[in-house]
């Protein structure tokens, strides 16, 4: 046991048997602070109102480490140091402080947490205690006394944001806390942005509290080389309906252990839960040992990182029950390297489901086609369960871009009947064969009416490959269809049929045919004989100059309908080398279009 010498420094003594012991065991809460030039103050802010501080029983003694001290402190207190130096502050009593309330002029001064002082310092709250103690390292080996956390505010009983933005902490072995969590009732954002954290161990912790653990490991290890080793097996979260941002942009070490988690049986929201997660474990997320995975939302749950080209490789959600999931939008978006999504074969999808927007965008190598292993396939019924989905924008953009696969089983039954917006839906999509899209239903479209590139039907199949035939005869789109600009540009599409004779498809809202089939393989476009092109203001570069995207009869019909329905002037129709029937009604119609002040480039009469 150590004793204090005359100047307050612990010195070693010897035990009776001659074996030296360590310094005296610290029994108080101890932090080290460093003052700076021009700022010699350090403020402890308890983060409570005066009345709350009284109710919480705040009453602590503080040794400032410069020879001065205060006792019986019941509220905020500021101490001014004599000079720029490093000081050790020791506190006992009933205490709390709140880094967010203290502000960075104070939290940046905290350099070390040396001891929690279990025996002498009773914590009234840990909420945000070290919030933005960005330069603080962690040396404590004991645990805080949280046996009597203040219950007067919504957050005072939580460990919420306890170490938020503590970027200098590299290791947290908190297993010693496991049996001493007192009356804590929430752990949200506890390690949020501990970016240099290389390991955190909360084995044995009881997270089954009334609060949630949202964002608990958010961004941990994101600045480390190998990621953060999160050791958190058998977490029990069976009370929380929220399961959001848990590993959002966390970089997880290969040895991460998050096996055996138990979630709320009635369901839980998975908003961005593994969004942007990286590292060796982040690349192979295996949740197959989890119980009660029953998301009410999978929005962005496994979304990749926007800037990364090597996002998650494997995701295993075997056992997940999606029967009450209301949205899948963005859920595996931008996983450029994702090859396997295991467990989707058990997915159910009901007509109440909403949200598939951008769900599969940039899943460049994901094989969910009939050729994929059964566990990696989505059930056929999955695709027909989006009847209430409104926004289909980019739903399958860049899907299979690197490696093309056959369309998924059941894809022909894609239910778009509730769709109000559908731009760029298949842009960049790559299939080995053409899916049957004849049953798509766009009767519920709503005009967007904004910038050209957000208009409905804009770039629908731009850059797609493998899709060769668009049978749109029964799409039933209304006059809220706004644009066919870029519709099939640079695609492998060969034939487009909007109508054969009379059609219910309403073209009267279509303003642009610009670049519609340019650089594509289109050789046949059937427009309905009742097509109303009254809103068209441009068909510039409809196709390349040498292309013939319409047969003569089809182009005849196009010119006839333009003349019959469009009275605009100054429109440029760049129709490549399409030819029309000369010397008759079509030639007359074409001449009338030109006479109205428009320009036509085509292959001339035949």
């Amino acid at each position, binding site marked *: 046991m150590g004793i204090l010498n005359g100047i307050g420094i612990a010195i070693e003594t010897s035990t009776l048997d001659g074996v030296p012991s360590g310094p005296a065991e610290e029994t108080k809460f101890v932090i080290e602070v460093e003052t700076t030039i021009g700022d010699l103050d350090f403020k402890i802010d308890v983060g409570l109102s005066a009345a709350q501080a009284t109710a919480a029983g705040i009453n602590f003694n503080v040794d400032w480490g410069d020879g001065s001290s205060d006792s019986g402190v019941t509220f905020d207190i500021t101490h001014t140091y004599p000079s720029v130096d490093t000081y050790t502050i020791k506190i006992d009593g009933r205490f709390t402080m709140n880094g967010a309330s203290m502000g960075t002029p104070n939290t940046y001064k905290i350099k070390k947490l040396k001891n929690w002082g279990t025996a002498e310092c009773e914590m009234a709250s840990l909420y945000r205690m070290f919030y933005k103690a960005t330069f603080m390292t962690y040396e404590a080996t004991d645990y805080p006394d949280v046996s009597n956390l203040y219950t007067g505010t919504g957050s005072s009983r939580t460990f919420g944001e306890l170490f938020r933005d503590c970027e200098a902490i590299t290791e947290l072995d908190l297993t010693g806390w496991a049996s001493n969590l007192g009356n804590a009732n929430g752990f949200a954002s506890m390690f949020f942005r501990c970016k240099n954290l290389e390991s955190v161990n909360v084995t044995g912790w009881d997270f089954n509290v009334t609060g949630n653990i949202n964002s608990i490991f958010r961004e941990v290890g994101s600045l480390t080389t190998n990621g953060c080793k999160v050791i958190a097996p058998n977490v029990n979260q069976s009370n929380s309906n929220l399961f959001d941002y848990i590993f959002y942009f966390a970089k997880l070490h290969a040895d991460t252990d998050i096996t055996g988690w138990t979630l709320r049986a009635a369901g839980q929201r998975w908003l961005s839960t593994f969004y942007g997660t990286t590292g060796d474990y982040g690349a192979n997320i295996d949740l197959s040992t989890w119980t009660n995975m029953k998301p009410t939302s999978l929005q962005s749950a496994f979304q990749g990182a926007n800037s990364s080209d090597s996002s998650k490789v494997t995701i295993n959600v075997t056992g997940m029950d999606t029967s009450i999931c209301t949205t899948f939008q963005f859920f595996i978006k931008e996983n450029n390297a994702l090859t396997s999504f295991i467990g989707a074969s058990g997915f159910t999808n009901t007509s109440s489901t909403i949200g598939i927007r951008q769900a599969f965008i940039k899943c460049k190598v994901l094989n969910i086609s009939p050729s994929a292993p059964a566990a990696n396939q989505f059930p056929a019924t999955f695709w027909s369960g989006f009847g209430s989905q409104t926004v289909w924008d980019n739903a399958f953009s860049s899907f299979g871009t690197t490696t093309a696969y056959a369309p998924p089983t059941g894809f022909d039954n894609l239910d778009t009947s509730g769709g109000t917006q559908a731009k760029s839906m298949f*842009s960049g999509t790559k299939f080995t064969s053409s899916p049957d899209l004849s049953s798509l239903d766009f009767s519920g479209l709503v005009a967007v009416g904004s910038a050209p590139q957000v208009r409905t039907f804009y770039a629908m199949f731009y850059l797609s490959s493998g899709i060769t035939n668009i049978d749109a005869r029964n799409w039933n789109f209304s006059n809220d269809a706004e644009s066919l600009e870029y519709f099939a540009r640079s695609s492998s599409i060969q034939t487009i049929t909007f109508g054969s004779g009379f059609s219910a498809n309403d073209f009267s809202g279509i303003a642009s045919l610009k670049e519609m089939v340019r650089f594509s393989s289109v050789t046949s476009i059937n427009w309905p004989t009742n097509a109303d092109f009254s809103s068209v203001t441009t068909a510039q570069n409809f196709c390349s100059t040498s292309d013939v995207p319409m047969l003569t009869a089809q182009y005849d019909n196009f010119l006839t309908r333009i003349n019959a329905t469009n009275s605009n002037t100054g429109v440029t129709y760049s129709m490549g080398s399409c030819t029309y029937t000369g010397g008759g009604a079509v030639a007359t119609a074409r001449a009338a279009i030109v006479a109205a002040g428009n320009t036509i480039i085509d292959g001339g009469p035949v």
Partner: protein
Amino acid sequence: MARIEKDNPNRWFYGKIEGTGEDSLKVLGYIGLQGQTELETGLPILVTFFTEEELQTAVNTIADNPDYYKDQVELEGDAEYDSKFTGESGIYQVGLRASEIIEIPEKS
């Protein structure tokens, strides 16, 4: 009505209305190979050229902007830029500076 016949060797053109400045230009570019395509316009002024360079010089003069033609070509296809260029170019890359549209900007 003015026209460029299929056999006309002048394949480069601009169409404009009366007046000066870039607003008077309504369409410009290349109509395709001789013998394959033709152009007919209701615009009051149609001027044709044998080379793209000649067209470039002419429209830059009208627009009083030495980069006008280049901009029209390289921004062709940009949804936010109302390019008047049609056809192909042998001088500049069509759409080079047009914004990438495969991923529609959108908050997630």
